[in-house]
C-alpha cells in the first residue's frame, strides 16, 4: 500500500507538475520580494460572452450623432464626472468601488479570437482547439497556479458552463500548457432562471446537488459509486485515465466534507441575500462565487451569458440585431443586479479589500448602428472594469474618442489589464514559466496600469 501511495505522489509531482517554478520556490520568491504590493487573495472574473457594448454600459457617448449614440441616455454615478448607461443604475451607485478602463483595444474581431486574447492575454495562433495543450493558459488558471488551497478545495472554479459559438467549444478557458491539473473545475450553478437560448452542459462540469444530503455523504461507498457513474458518463471516451482520476479525486475531496461542498448548497444562504442577487442564474452564479471565495477557492470565473452565441439568438451579448430591446429588457437588468449585489455583499462582509473583481468581455460593439438595429464586433476600443482587491475605485483610466471608435487617451490592451490583475494578486507578471517541453513563456506581456 505504501508503494501505491508513493507512486501517486511521484505521479503528481512529475507528470502533472511543471518543469518550471514550483510552489515552494514561488513562496520563497514572494517572501524575498519587497516590490510586490498585491493585497488581493482571491479573484472573481465576470465574463460577458459575445462582446458587451461599451456604449450601453460604461462609456456612453451622449454627444455623438444619433446613429452612433443610440437610444439610451447616460446617468450620473456616485462619482462626480463619471457617467454610465441609464440601464445600469445599481452599478452606477457602486462607482466609488470601480476603476473603469475605457481605452482597451486589440485586433481580434472574431469571437474565438477576441475571447482568447481577453482571457489569456495573448493573440491566438491558427488552429487553436478547446482542449489544446499548446494553448496559452487562461487568466483564471494562471492565477490559480500560484495558489495552493487546502485539500478538497479546487484552486480554480468556473461556471455555469463553457463558452460555445454555433456548437463549437471555444479555446482559451483551460490551462493549456500549464497542464490538466490547472484546468479550472467546471461547476454547474444549481439555481436560478437559466439564460434563454442555447446552453450546453456537455463538458465535465460537476453538479453536486444530487450528492448533497448528509445521509449520502455519510455513506461514502454509495457516494463514490454514484460519482464514478456520473463522471464516467460525462467524461466519456475522450479522456485519458489520469484526467478522469484528477476530476474524480477532486470531486470526492469536495464531497467528503470540504467547505466547498457547503458553499455549493445555495439553499442554506439567507433567502433575503439570495433575493438581492436576483432569481436568475446570472445572480445565483455570482452569489455562488462569493460563497466559493469564502470557502477558500482563490479564483472563480462566472460566464454571465447564455453558453452558445447561436447566431445571436438568446441571452448573450452578441447583439447584431435588436440590440436596444435586448440590452434593456434581458441583458443589462440581470447583469446590473447581479454585479451590484456581489459588490454590496463583498463590501459588507469585509471581503472586498482582499477580493479582486474583474469584468471581461470579447470586445466592444461598432460605433454605427447597423441596418438591423444592432451593433457589430468592435475590438478597436471598449471598456473593462476592475473593483476591490486594493484597486482604487471612483476612477476612469483612459478614454475613447468622441464617437467611441478608437482610444482617445492612454490606450491599453487586455495584456495590460491582466498585468494589473497579477500585480493586485501579488504575482510578478513578467515571471517566466516553462511548459512541459521546457520552453520558456513569460506569463504576461503587458504592463500594469496605475490603478492601485
Amino acid at each position, binding site marked *: *500500500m505504501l508503494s*501505491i*501511495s508513493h507512486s*501517486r*505522489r511521484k505521479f*503528481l*509531482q512529475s507528470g502533472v507538475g511543471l518543469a518550471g517554478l*514550483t*510552489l*515552494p520556490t514561488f*513562496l520563497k520568491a*514572494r*517572501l524575498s*520580494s*519587497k516590490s*510586490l504590493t498585491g493585497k488581493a487573495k482571491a479573484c472573481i472574473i465576470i465574463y460577458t460572452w459575445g462582446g458587451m457594448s461599451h456604449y450601453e454600459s460604461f462609456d456612453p457617448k451622449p454627444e455623438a450623432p444619433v446613429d452612433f449614440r443610440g437610444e439610451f441616455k447616460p446617468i450620473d454615478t456616485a462619482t462626480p464626472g463619471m457617467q454610465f448607461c441609464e440601464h445600469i443604475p445599481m452599478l452606477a451607485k457602486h462607482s466609488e468601488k470601480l476603476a473603469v478602463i475605457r481605452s482597451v483595444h486589440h485586433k481580434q474581431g472574431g469571437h474565438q479570437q477576441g475571447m482568447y486574447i481577453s482571457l489569456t492575454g495573448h493573440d491566438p495562433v491558427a488552429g487553436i482547439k478547446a482542449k489544446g495543450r499548446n494553448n496559452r493558459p487562461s487568466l483564471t488558471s494562471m492565477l490559480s497556479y500560484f495558489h*495552493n*488551497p*487546502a*485539500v478538497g*478545495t479546487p484552486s480554480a472554479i468556473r461556471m455555469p458552463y463553457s463558452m460555445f459559438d454555433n456548437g463549437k467549444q471555444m479555446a482559451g478557458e483551460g490551462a493549456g500548457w500549464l497542464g490538466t491539473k490547472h484546468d479550472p473545475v467546471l461547476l454547474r450553478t444549481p439555481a436560478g432562471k437559466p439564460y*434563454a*437560448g442555447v446552453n450546453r452542459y456537455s463538458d465535465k462540469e460537476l453538479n453536486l446537488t444530487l450528492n448533497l444530503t448528509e445521509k449520502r455523504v455519510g455513506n*461514502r461507498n454509495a457516494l*463514490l*459509486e454514484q460519482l*464514478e457513474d456520473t463522471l*464516467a458518463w460525462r467524461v466519456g*471516451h475522450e479522456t485519458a*485515465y489520469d484526467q*478522469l*482520476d484528477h476530476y*474524480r*479525486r477532486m470531486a*470526492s*475531496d469536495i464531497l*467528503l466534507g*470540504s*467547505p466547498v461542498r457547503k458553499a455549493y448548497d445555495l439553499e442554506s444562504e*439567507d433567502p*433575503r441575500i439570495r*433575493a*438581492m442577487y436576483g432569481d436568475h442564474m446570472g445572480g445565483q452564479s455570482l452569489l455562488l462565487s462569493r460563497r466559493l471565495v469564502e*470557502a*477558500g477557492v482563490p479564483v472563480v470565473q462566472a460566464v454571465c451569458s447564455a453558453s452558445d452565441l447561436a*447566431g445571436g*439568438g*438568446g*441571452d448573450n451579448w452578441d447583439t447584431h*440585431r*435588436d440590440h436596444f*430591446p435586448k440590452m434593456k429588457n*434581458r441583458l443589462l437588468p440581470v447583469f446590473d443586479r447581479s454585479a451590484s449585489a456581489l459588490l*454590496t455583499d463583498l*463590501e*459588507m*462582509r*469585509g471581503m472586498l*479589500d482582499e477580493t479582486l473583481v474583474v469584468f471581461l468581455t470579447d470586445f466592444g460593439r461598432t460605433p454605427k448602428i447597423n441596418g438591423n438595429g444592432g451593433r457589430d464586433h468592435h475590438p478597436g476600443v471598449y471598456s473593462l472594469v476592475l473593483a476591490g482587491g486594493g484597486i482604487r475605485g471612483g476612477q476612469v483610466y483612459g478614454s475613447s474618442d468622441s464617437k467611441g471608435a478608437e482610444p482617445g487617451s492612454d490606450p491599453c490592451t487586455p495584456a495590460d489589464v491582466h498585468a494589473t490583475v497579477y500585480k493586485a494578486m*501579488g504575482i510578478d507578471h513578467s515571471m517566466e514559466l516553462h511548459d512541459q517541453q521546457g520552453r520558456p513563456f513569460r506569463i504576461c506581456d503587458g504592463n500594469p496600469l496605475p490603478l492601485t
Partner: protein
Amino acid sequence: MKPLPLLYLGMFLMKLHHFVLHYAAINLLFSGVLLFGESDKPSSVLAIEKLGGLALPMPGGGWEVGFHLRGRESFEDEGLKALKNLGEIVSLNLRDTKITNKGLVHLQGLVSLRRLHLERTSIDNSGLKNLSKLKNLEYLNLYQTQVSDDGLRHLSDLKKLKKLFLWDTKVSDEGVRELQKSLPQLFVSRGLNLEKLAADAPKPSPPKPRASMKWLSSSGTESPPTKSTPGSPIQVTFLNKSKQPVKLVWMDYGGGQKLYGEISAGGSREQNTYSEAVWLITDLNDKPLGHFVTSQEDANGVIPAN
C-alpha cells in the same frame, strides 16, 4: 467507446484502495509537500495544521493564520495556545469557528495583529475587552456577532483601526458615532438592512395579457414570408379552435419545412421559438391553412374555427 473498459478497471482498482490510503495520501500531498516540502516545515506550523488551521508567512514578515476553513468544525478556544510558538502574527481569521468570549483571552498578547476576523462567531461585548490593547489593529470584522454599543467602547483606544465591519450586529447609529469621535479616520461598514431590502424588492409585475399573432389565412390575399429570420427567444401558444386536427410546421431559415407535431381539434401547444419565425399550419393532408409570424413578444396563435 474503446477505452471505457480500461476506465472501469481503473476505477475498480481505485475504489479498492480508496478508503485505506487515497484520502490520506492526497491530504499529505496538498497540505504538505507542495507548499513547504515536508521536511522543512516548522513544528509550530504543523501544530496549527493539526488543528485544521493554516499558517503562511507574510511578504513583509510575520505570519498569517486562519482556522476559518477546515478548522471551523474542530477548532476550539484552547487551540489559540498553539499560536504562541509561531512568532509575530499579523493576521488571524477565526470566522465561523467555535471561539468563545473566554477564548479571546489568548489574543491579548498578539500585539502585532493588524487584521482580525471574528465574524459569524458567538462572541459578544465581554469578549471585546480582550482586544483593547491590540494597538496595531487596522481591520476588525465583527459582522453577525452579538456585539452592541457597549462593546464598541473597548475599541476606542485602537488608534490605527481603519476598517470595522458591523453588519447584522446590535450596534446603533449612536454607538457608531460615539466610536468615530475617538477614531475619526475609522470607516465603519454597517451593511444592508435585509428587512428593508426584502420590503423594497421589486414585486413581480402582473403578467401582461398576451398579444395574439395575426392569422394569415392561405385563402387570403396577404402572403407571408417564405422563411424565418434568426431572432431572440420567445414563447408562443398555439390554440386550435377549428374542428379538425392540424399540423404545426416551422419554415426554417432556408425556406425548408420542418414538422413540429399535430394539435388536436380544440387543443393547444406551448412552443419555444424565436422572434421573426414563420409557422405554417396545415391540415393532416398537408394542405396549407394559414401562417403566423412571431414578433419580439410572447404571444398566442389562434387557429380560427373556419
